[in-house]
Structures are given as structure tokens and as C-alpha cells.
């Protein structure tokens, strides 16, 4: 299964240029509220992520982890509060000195800084692998088709898929598809990468190849990562900080070694124990 070679760190660092950030906080949630009907999922949530920081979000099902990433990716709209990315407000813009809800144009400019990889890959099945990765850079970064494809090729080689440029997603294994999805997100040169349970839909033997790619990216770039995962080993290796969520609130947060070995809250302890039993 591991015929695909894993890229070396230097090449990755060069291919994935993450522009340095002047902001002190790369992501900031400010009293963010999110409801689905009567279900209040996030109740004035505050947290922030520093540039280059890797955080892992854990917590029981329904605690709002996915919702947080989707709010940041602007797939969902917040019902209250503000979200800042790299010093810019994502949810509001300034019109004549007054703060108004952000319009599509404003959202598009801030959204450029964010990328996301989904649990279900969500590759475009009508496009070959190369075009999946090159399409957005052509239309959103203004690259020529040739430039975009050259860069897409490079990225795909770095995730070990240099031989699959002309395949359709349906011809790939889940692990390969997810690596394409990672390359596709990176091709837009985001400063923040959201990863929502990116190995949960994979057969167990395919999990490692995807996590290896992510480890490499984490080791060789300054990209800020928000990661929802149940892979405790990966979370420990990669993340600087783990946030434990329950019912849309942060129960506790700490460095992974601390949180996984000496959790302070009963809620965290039960959650981690249940997780261990599952695996």
C-alpha cells in the first residue's frame, strides 16, 4: 500500500509558501453564537489561535467541532459575535465608519486565507486529479492554466500522487483521494488549514498515509492548523494545544501531553476513556 513515496520536507516547504503574518492572532472567535433552529450550538464562544499554531479540537459528538470549522470556512453563517482571521474581520466589514455584516465580496477576500479538508473528501468527480487541484488557482489566484498545473503537479508529487494526475477521483482509494484533497486545499496557499476528521471515512490501513502527509506539512511549513480528529497519537505529535469541547463550550485546554495524560476535568477524563475503549 505504501508504494507512493512521501515527500521530503524541504520541497514541501518551498511548494507551500505560507506568507508570514503580522497579526498576533491568526484566528479569533469573539462571542460567537450559532443556532440551528432552537438548538443553540455555540453560545458566545471565545478562543484564538496564534499564527503557525496547531490546535486540535476534541469532544463528544454534537459538541460543535465541525460547526466551528464550518463557521471559519464561511460555509455556515454565525448568528452573533465576530470572527477575525489574520487581523481582518470575516463576519463584518466597515462601511463609512460603521460595522455592517460582511457582504459576499468582503467574505471572498478574507476567505482566501482559509482552506479546508473534509471528512468525505468532496473532490470534484467530473474532473481529473490534476484539474481538481489546478481549477481554483486558475480562477481565484489568477494563474495561467499552465502555471497552475505546474504547481498542482508539484503538490501532487509531494503528497505521493505524481503518477495519478490523469486519474478520476473515483479511480483512487480513499487515502489517495484525501491526499488529493489536501493538495487541492494547499494549492490556494491558505494561511489557515481546517481539517475535519479527515481520516474518519478511511479504511484503517489507509489512515497512516494521510496522517504522514499532514505530519510532513506540519513539520515543514508555518501553516496554522485547526484539526478535529480522534487520532490521539497524531494530535500529540502535531498539535501545540488541544481544546476539549462540550456543548459548544471549551471545557479545558492544554498542551497535548498534559491534556491527554493529566486532564483536569471529569468530562475530559470520561471522554478520553471512552475514546480509548473504542480504539
Amino acid at each position, binding site marked *: 500500500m505504501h508504494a507512493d513515496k512521501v515527500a521530503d520536507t524541504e520541497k514541501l516547504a518551498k511548494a507551500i509558501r505560507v506568507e508570514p503574518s503580522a497579526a498576533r492572532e491568526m484566528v479569533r472567535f469573539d462571542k460567537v453564537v450559532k443556532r440551528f433552529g432552537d438548538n443553540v450550538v455555540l453560545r458566545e464562544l471565545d478562543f484564538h489561535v496564534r499564527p503557525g499554531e496547531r490546535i486540535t479540537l476534541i469532544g463528544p459528538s454534537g459538541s460543535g467541532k465541525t460547526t466551528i470549522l*464550518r463557521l471559519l470556512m464561511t460555509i455556515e453563517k454565525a448568528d452573533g459575535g465576530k470572527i477575525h482571521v489574520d487581523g481582518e474581520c470575516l463576519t463584518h466589514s466597515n462601511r463609512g465608519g460603521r460595522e455592517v455584516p460582511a457582504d459576499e465580496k468582503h467574505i471572498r477576500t478574507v476567505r482566501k486565507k482559509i482552506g479546508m479538508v473534509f471528512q468525505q473528501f468532496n473532490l*470534484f468527480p467530473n474532473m481529473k486529479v490534476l484539474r481538481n487541484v489546478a481549477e481554483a488557482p486558475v480562477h*481565484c489566484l489568477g494563474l495561467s492554466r499552465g502555471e497552475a498545473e505546474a504547481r498542482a503537479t508539484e503538490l501532487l508529487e509531494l503528497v505521493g500522487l505524481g503518477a495519478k494526475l490523469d486519474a478520476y477521483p473515483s479511480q483512487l482509494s480513499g487515502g489517495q483521494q484525501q491526499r488529493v484533497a489536501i493538495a487541492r486545499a494547499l494549492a*490556494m496557499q491558505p494561511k489557515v488549514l481546517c481539517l475535519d476528521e479527515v481520516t474518519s471515512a478511511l479504511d484503517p490501513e489507509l489512515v497512516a498515509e494521510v496522517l504522514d502527509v499532514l505530519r510532513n506539512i506540519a513539520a515543514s511549513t508555518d501553516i496554522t492548523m485547526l484539526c478535529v480528529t480522534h487520532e490521539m497519537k497524531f494530535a500529540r505529535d502535531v498539535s501545540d494545544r488541544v481544546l476539549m469541547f462540550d456543548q459548544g463550550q471549551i471545557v479545558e485546554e492544554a498542551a497535548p501531553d498534559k491534556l491527554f495524560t493529566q486532564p483536569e476535568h471529569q468530562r475530559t477524563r470520561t471522554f478520553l476513556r471512552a475514546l480509548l475503549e473504542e480504539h
Partner: protein
Amino acid sequence: MIWDWDYTWDILPDLLRGLVVTVQATLVGSVVAMVLGLVFALLRRSRATPVRVVTGAVVEFIRSTPLLVQLYFLFFVLPSLGITLSGFLAGVIGLGVHYATYTSEVYRAGIEGVPRGQWEAATALNLPTSRVWRSVILPQAIPRVLPALGNYVIAMFKETPLLSAITVLEMLAVAKGLGSQTFRYLEPLTLVGLLFLLVSLPASLTVRRLERRYAR
């Protein structure tokens, strides 16, 4: 009344010329229905509520009134408003617009069949909406609805005799003319039926094949 073969061979060329008109009307009408149906489907998803409501009302109105009435309107009423259309032009517009209300439903189903994750991935890549439609949504939605669209083309083909009511010399009009000249209707009308069958049967089989290809 016995089948007259000599008469049959005499009238066949005229009927075939009628068939050509029938096929032309179907093809042009189909193009109108395909394009306008897609426009209707997209307008009904517009973010602007008035656009959605007006389009919905127009589509509902056209779908709920008989095609023949619409053809009469185009051919007999529009001239009094200063717009004179040939029978053929009025016919293909009438057919196309009427069937566009059906094809718009087909497109709608196809568009809704594209998983939400595709929209979400496109958002995550910051693709502009118009680009999402062209590169992601429609290329996935349209192949799946080709069989349904094909069925409407065949249905339209079988409705073209209505155009005889607005002076278009399609196959049925030709047959009626021949019959009234010779007082023999058996051969021309039988031939009309056979010729319709000859075209629509292979067409149906093709659609059936498409259905199997895209059935998943």
C-alpha cells in the same frame, strides 16, 4: 377499402418532406426547451426573491395552459401587436417555451442531486459562484438528466402535429391535404403513424440506453 400500393409510392415523397419539417421543428424546439429550461431552473434558484417568484409564476402559467392555445396566441394574436411570426417560427417558439417548463423541472432535480459537499468544497476553494455552476454543478447535473430530457424531446416530436393548426406543413398537415385531394385517408394516415414510429422507436431505445449508462 383495400391498400393501394401505387398511391402509397406516389404520396411517400410528400410525406417524407413533411417528416423533415416535423424533425426540424422538433430539433429547433428542443434547443429552445433545453436552453430556456436551464435559464428557468437557474432563475428559480436566484438569491433575489422577486426573480424567483416571477419566474415561478410564469413557468406555472405556461405549464397550466394548453399548448394549442399558446400556439394560436403566438400565431394569431401577436400580429395584432405588430409581431408577425411565420407558422414555423411561432410553432418552434411555442413548443420550446412550453417544454422549457418541463425541462426546468428536470434540471432542478439534477441540480439538487449534486451533493451539498460539492458546494462546500467550492466555497472552501473560494470559487466564484458562476464558476461553480460551470465547472462543478452543471457538469455533474446534466449527464444525469440527459435521459429525462431525451424523453421530452420524443414527447415534443409526437406533439408537432399541433403545428398543422397554424399552417405549418408538417407530416400530418401534408397527409390531410393529400387525403382531401384524393378522398383516400387510409394510406397517408397509416404512413404518418408508421413514420412517427420509425423515428420515435429508435429514439426511445437510445434514451433507454442512456438511462442504463447513467443509472447508478
